[in-house]
């Protein structure tokens, strides 16, 4: 890895849902793949996530959502990033997302949606390609 410019990733759990296995696994996996990973912990409002992303100057925000409210929560985060002038931050979504909602998330500006069974290596490869292209 090139230590001088590690890609910074914020893994975030918006809302009150407490199922964080996926968030933990992805955070560990991305860290081992050479990224700098910040995990917000539970019960974050979209506003708090946006603020952390901007303050920490991250390249990527990964939202872990399993409560069914992925459309509204993601929209709030994306709007917040735009308002904060941080629309260049890549937003990814992971968790339980019905197939028909994936195109809707991408229309909002989500880079990719990773559902159950995705290897962490697929996530890290995607981030590397997307961030180096931008």
């Amino acid at each position, binding site marked *: 890895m090139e230590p001088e410019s590690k890609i910074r990733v914020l893994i975030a759990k918006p*809302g*009150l849902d407490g199922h964080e*296995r996926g968030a*933990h696994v992805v955070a560990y996996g991305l860290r081992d793949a050479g990224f700098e990973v910040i*995990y917000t912990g539970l*019960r974050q*409002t979209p506003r708090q996530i946006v603020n952390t992303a901007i303050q920490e100057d991250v390249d990527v925000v990964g939202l872990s959502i399993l409560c069914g*409210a992925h459309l509204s929560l993601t929209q709030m985060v994306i709007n917040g990033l735009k308002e904060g002038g941080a629309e260049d931050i890549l937003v990814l979504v992971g968790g339980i997302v019905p197939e028909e909602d994936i195109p809707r998330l991408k229309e909002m500006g989500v880079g990719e949606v990773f559902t*159950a069974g995705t290897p962490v290596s697929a996530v890290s490869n995607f981030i590397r390609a997307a961030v180096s292209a931008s």
Partner: protein
Amino acid sequence: MPENKKETDKIEQAEKQWQQQVIEKRVARFNLSKSPTRFYSPTSIKNFDFLEKVGFPGLYPYTAGSNPFDFWRAYAGDAAKTGYRPDWGGAGGVGKYGGFGTAEDYRDYLIRMHAMGRTGGPNMAFDLVTQCGYDSDSPYAEGEVGRVGVAIDSFRDFAVIYEPYTGNLEIDKVPSNFTINAPAAVIIAMYATLAEKRGIPLDKLRGTPQNDILKEFIARGTYIYPPGPSLRLFRDTCVFCTRYMPKFNINSMGGYHIREAGATRVQDLAFSMANAAAYIRAGISGGLAVDGFAPMLTFNAFGGSMEIYQEIAFQRAARRIYARMVKEKFGAQNPRSMMIRQPITAHIGCSSTTLQRPLNNLTRAVVGGIAAGMSGGIPGAFPPYDEPLGLGHSQEAVQLQLDATRILIYEAKVADVNDPWAGSYFMESLTDEIESEALAEMEKIENMGGAVAAIENGYMQKAISKSAYERQKQIERQEDFVVGVNAFTGSNEISVNVNRVVEATYDPQLLKTAEKRQLRKLEQLKQERNGRAVSAALSDLKKHAKDESVNLMSDICECVRNDATLQEICDVLREVFGEFQQTKL
């Protein structure tokens, strides 16, 4: 068993020969470094004492089963003849787990269910706002009101749900389940208050609150206060239920959630047993005799993997560990105290299901059903195959799930023998192995100061997330295989499409407007109630909360009676107890 030494030596000798002449040859022939299979002989369980290790079903140490047969097995024939559907609920039980929107929405749903003959008691799912001790007007509530369960802000909401439960369905006849943890004391107080207002004696009430706060810190995340004060609230509910609601179960402890969060089998067993020990100590510290309340502790199906042999051994080891712990460590004498009471035993857990080729999940659930049937439980195929699709279970998936269980009971006759593996060299050896590993882990936790200390110092949380990551790495390195996920994914495999009709259980229009309607009700409540009485009740609660020795249930009941909101009650306790700060991993 070959007790005499001569016989044992003979077998050992023969085993050595077999190892050299058969196994090693075969390993060489296939060019392996070691044998991929194992065989167990009497040498695997030397000095096996049947009565000490296994005993008979329904007798200590309960390895062979908590009971030789349960209600469902006793009347299996009648159930088949009358076409009984367990998901509909009956006179003796609760209905399907559910809940959404406002109390009115959920009430109307229950009325519709009753009209269809589904007359089981309410089996309530609460929204996350309620589970985390907030009201619908909290900034945390936005977008979450009524979403994953019903929204309860005050006793008024709670009472609305019970409007259709009168006459034959009165609450002294029908039990209720409450899947609630951190605010369990408030919900139990609401149930007691409902009975009081209806003139129903509390000792007639039946039901089960989840009331298993310790696993929330480890696995599910809906905690409020730090573990110590949380356990104090458990103590208060435990004493209250024992004294006034003796037919009402005290809690429903879950190892299931811990496993789903990533725990290994041994961690699941050790952590849930350590939690159980903490609850028992809490009850004793409240002045109760262990046999006075331990019979009303329950478990909710711990376990959860595809490894059928290990899951069977796990259930056997769990029953033995729990029985011995409650008897030897806590001095129980009542056999009912020593038994693990849980509705189902083994199962695969939702995390064993895959989004890829989802119909395969039916096959997987059947494996879990067989493990359950062979370990003293109803051979329940769980969950419905479309679980990971995230859209709710379809009618077809539920039908196939029910039928799979029926096929295991009636056609395969899986449940006709208790503990069919009893005495198996392999199963007894595996049971011993899981037991001794779990006991070692339990001792480690005990040495830290018990479950509360092992949560406060983050030990359990870290251990589980590491295990979850290890499991993920195993899958990514193909050290373990999941069909359709990390193996057999080539272009020559075909996806199987299935017809699914998702029951329109919850009206999407109602879901959309629930938050608004709930907010209006809450506002109205705050205008109508006697504000002075609310403040007085809350201030008594606060005063008593500061004294660890006081049982808070009568204060909480008084708050509920006076229409204090759930969050107002929880906020008072937040002020005194503080809030749990999550461990940094």
